[in-house]
């Protein structure tokens, strides 16, 4: 789907109309996962492992089932066998099979007439555990005598002697590293460390499942992808896809963490067994213990540079810890690590390690922040050693159109250089710093995704249009989709209503992930509008009794395409719609696509940080985000993505981490001890949008959602390092950790 070659003047694209779901969300009317009820509804609760690693010898639920009000108990035996290793892993993460693999792993679930009774029943389920040795850290999990989680999950094709907890070997790059390093004036090699973080969405996972005696089921849940939920749940329950209808509620944040199932198949299994609707909602403690954190990581980075700042060779060895199951996120980290640079000799390799922690789930540009952070931190160290400007060095090495990327493909038109130049010219970069202050710079990259997408739109008799799409709206996408429909049809934005339909109402859609919605759903919306326009032009041609090709669409009207077509009064969309039943019946447009032309995205962040040398307490004084959005459909929501991603990255850099004790238990499963940024922690975050059109979208749209979480880790780390005059090489940089480095 190519960029429209004809340069067009937009009327609606680029403006900032109110979002269509806005009033519901400021009045409390909007219904999220936990807000739905059903007659006769039961409450479901999950029993979770108190151990980091244990064999489940037996489960005796008889006392729980004997409690008045308890209607069903389910365990692993209540699910069908999942097909393929990935689906088996997801199911086993929802409900432990022969072993509990981490602290908080689900082992059984109960449905009862009230939450109070369900909680009492959990205490009556007797689980006989044989506690096993556990491992939660990368260094320990690769030792020869480490406890092994699943011997059958070791990386396929791994060399003899590879530790059993190693999965997912990764290797990307090109060129002659040895020759490259030989050309360098300075080579630095350093090791870095990051800890697991959580997506931290404010809405815990919640759902309402209802299965009838005929095996048909309905599921309401907060998810980024209800089609994916349907496919996973149907597989785990042994249902056909058409028997399970999933409706996505409004979603209270996801950031990747709601692209997979946790409680949904459990609620369905309980409903099937109890014969009643079952509602389930995780507590915040459960969200931390049993839903997706990111990997933690170790990295060894080696970069060679000339005195002038040209990178001659670069090598990364990455180790990610993805929890109790294999994880492919290492691939994404390795692919992104050096993607911002045009390099002759580059290699990024690594592997994933299984540990007794919850299964890693996607978090905004999964793998990229921890793949890019050590590279950008080491480049900053090289800049200081060589006395070079960090933006100049990045400009000198920046990838551009035609660059063979470090992970393989050759880039089309990209906006990295323009973004770096904008940062260099910005007043932020040219403002002097005070004592104990440092300024950090970092680039960031994300691939962006397209994927399977379906959109349909009905032209109503009154001239309004109903757009039906299938991607949960996590940050204003109904507004941007409605704007693109209005732009293409030539009617007012207010005349469009966009809804997110259930899985039975429209074709398959990949989840709201990969920064794909404004790109893919937008593309499909534009094409669905063009389909509807073609049909309307055909109807008008029939009325005018001329060839359909002689009718053109302009400003919401069908017009004769030229003087030769004849002299007819233009007909508006509303006029055409009003008589549709007389010209052939209802008019609707639709489009289905597997979009493969998402344009890659780059960003550059500037962070000013002041560190109190007495306490190690750091304050973000100023923060600016520069990012290529392709074409910003609704600039306010593009800025919002850039600001929100930056804030999450700042939290990752400064405070957030999963803390496990020697006992393998998670010590900080709550917002008090796992501290995400609050309003008083942050300065205003300026967002500077650049628009370098994506050649693969009619309006030039690129995804914007994920890139902004990539640069903050190194931007903040580089700022802190420059402020204290010593290098920080581990995240998060909480005050005690900064103080330790200051005191040396």
């Amino acid at each position: 789907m190519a960029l429209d070659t004809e340069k067009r003047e937009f009327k609606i694209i680029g403006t900032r109309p109110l979002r269509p779901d806005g009033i519901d969300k400021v009045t409390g009317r909007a219904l999220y996962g936990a807000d739905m009820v059903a007659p006769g509804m039961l409450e479901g609760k999950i029993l979770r492992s108190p151990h980091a690693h244990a064999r489940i010898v037996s489960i005796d639920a008889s006392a729980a089932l004997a409690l008045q009000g308890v209607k069903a108990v389910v365990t692993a035996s209540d699910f069908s066998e999942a097909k393929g290793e990935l689906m088996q892993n997801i199911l086993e993460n929802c409900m432990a099979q022969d072993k509990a693999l981490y602290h908080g792993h689900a082992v059984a679930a109960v449905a009862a007439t009230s939450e109070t009774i369900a909680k009492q029943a959990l205490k009556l389920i007797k689980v006989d555990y044989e506690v096993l040795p556990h491992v939660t850290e990368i260094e320990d999990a690769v030792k020869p005598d480490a406890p092994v989680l699943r011997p059958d999950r070791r990386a396929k094709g791994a060399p003899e002697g590879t530790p059993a907890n190693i999965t997912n070997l990764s290797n990307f790059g090109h060129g002659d590293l040895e020759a490259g390093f030989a050309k360098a004036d300075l080579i630095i090699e350093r090791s870095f460390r990051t800890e697991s973080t959580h997506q931290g969405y404010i809405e815990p996972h919640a759902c309402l499942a209802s299965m009838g005696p005929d095996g048909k089921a309905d599921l309401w849940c907060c998810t980024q992808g209800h089609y994916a939920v349907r496919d996973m749940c149907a597989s785990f329950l042994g249902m056909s896809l058409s028997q399970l209808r999933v409706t996505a509620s409004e979603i209270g944040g996801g950031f990747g963490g709601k692209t997979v199932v946790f409680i949904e198949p459990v609620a369905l299994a309980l409903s099937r067994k109890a014969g009643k609707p079952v509602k389930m909602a995780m507590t915040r403690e459960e969200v931390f213990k049993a839903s997706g954190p990111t990997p933690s990581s170790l990295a060894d980075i080696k970069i060679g540079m000339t005195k002038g700042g040209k990178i001659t060779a670069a090598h990364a060895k990455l180790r990610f810890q993805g929890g109790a199951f294999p994880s492919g996120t290492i691939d994404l980290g390795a692919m992104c690590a050096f993607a911002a640079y045009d390099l002759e000799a580059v290699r990024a390799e690594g592997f994933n390690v299984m540990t007794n922690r919850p299964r890693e789930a996607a978090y905004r540009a999964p793998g990229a922040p921890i793949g890019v952070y050590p590279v950008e931190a080491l480049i900053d160290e090289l800049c200081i050693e060589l006395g070079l400007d960090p933006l100049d060095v990045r400009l000198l090495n920046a990838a551009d159109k035609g660059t063979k990327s470090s992970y393989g493909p050759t880039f089309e038109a990209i906006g990295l250089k323009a973004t770096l130049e904008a940062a260099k010219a910005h007043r932020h970069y040219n403002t002097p710093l005070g004592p104990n202050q440092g300024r950090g710079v970092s680039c960031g990259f994300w691939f962006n995704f397209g994927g399977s997408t379906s959109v349909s739109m009905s032209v109503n008799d009154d001239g309004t249009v109903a757009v039906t799409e299938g991607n949960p709206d996590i940050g204003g996408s109904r507004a941007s989709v409605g704007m693109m429909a209005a732009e293409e049809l030539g009617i007012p934005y207010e005349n469009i209503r966009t809804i997110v339909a259930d899985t039975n109402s429209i074709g398959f859609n990949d989840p709201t992930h990969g920064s794909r919605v404004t790109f893919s759903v937008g593309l499909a919306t534009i094409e669905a509008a063009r389909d509807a326009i073609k049909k309307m032009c055909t109807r008008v041609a029939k009325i005018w009794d001329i060839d359909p090709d002689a009718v053109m669409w302009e400003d919401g009207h069908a017009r004769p395409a030229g003087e030769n077509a004849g002299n007819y009064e233009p007909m508006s969309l509303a006029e055409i719609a009003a008589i549709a039943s007389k010209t052939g019946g209802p008019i609707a447009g639709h489009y289905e696509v597997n979009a493969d032309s998402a344009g890659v995205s780059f960003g550059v962040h500037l962070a000013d940080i002041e560190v109190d040398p007495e306490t190690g307490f750091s304050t973000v004084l100023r923060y600016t985000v520069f990012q290529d959005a392709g074409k910003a459909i609704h600039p306010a929501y593009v800025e919002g993505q850039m600001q929100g991603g930056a804030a999450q990255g700042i939290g990752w850099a400064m405070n957030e981490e999963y803390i496990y004790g020697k006992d393998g238990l998670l010590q900080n499963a709550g917002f008090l001890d796992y501290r995400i940024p609050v309003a008083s922690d942050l300065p205003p975050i300026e967002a500077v949008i650049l628009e370098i059109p994506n050649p693969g979208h009619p309006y030039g749209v690129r995804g914007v959602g994920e890139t902004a979480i990539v640069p903050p880790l190194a931007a903040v780390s580089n700022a802190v390092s420059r402020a204290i005059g010593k290098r920080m090489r581990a995240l998060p940089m909480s005050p005690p950790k900064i103080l330790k480095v200051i005191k040396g």
Partner: protein
Amino acid sequence: MNKIHVTTTVNGDPVEYLCEPQETLLDVLRNQLRLTGAKEGCGTGDCGACSVTLNGRLVCSCLVLAAEAGGQEVATVEGIADGDNLHILQKKILEHAALQCGVCTPGILVAAKALLEKHPDPTEVEARYWLAGNLCRCTGYDKIITAVMDAAAEMRGA
């Protein structure tokens, strides 16, 4: 289990309910009165998504027992608009695109309204500290603070 009979007012309307001793005001608002605007983000008073006011005082309704609300005036997000007329704060949150997922928005609105009733002319830093008990994971707070400051100015007639 003996339930407790509570008489109170919610958003100006008289309300009666029976609650268990351990039930929170948030539980009763959501599960009995079906006022689901207040959200349970944590249940431990850390996120502010369940913010309501009790006699004008900002509280986390997950930390208030339902039985304690007897005889008090409870105000929730559902009572902020005057019929079809949105409160200035609601309008400004929308105009500035100061919400993405929107799940923290009810709590932010209740807290910001309480701020402006007490301090009609806050500095930006004061607004940031007042709202520090309301977690938002989507926006980075920038547009929320802009919206609150803009609403404050408009409410003062500035």
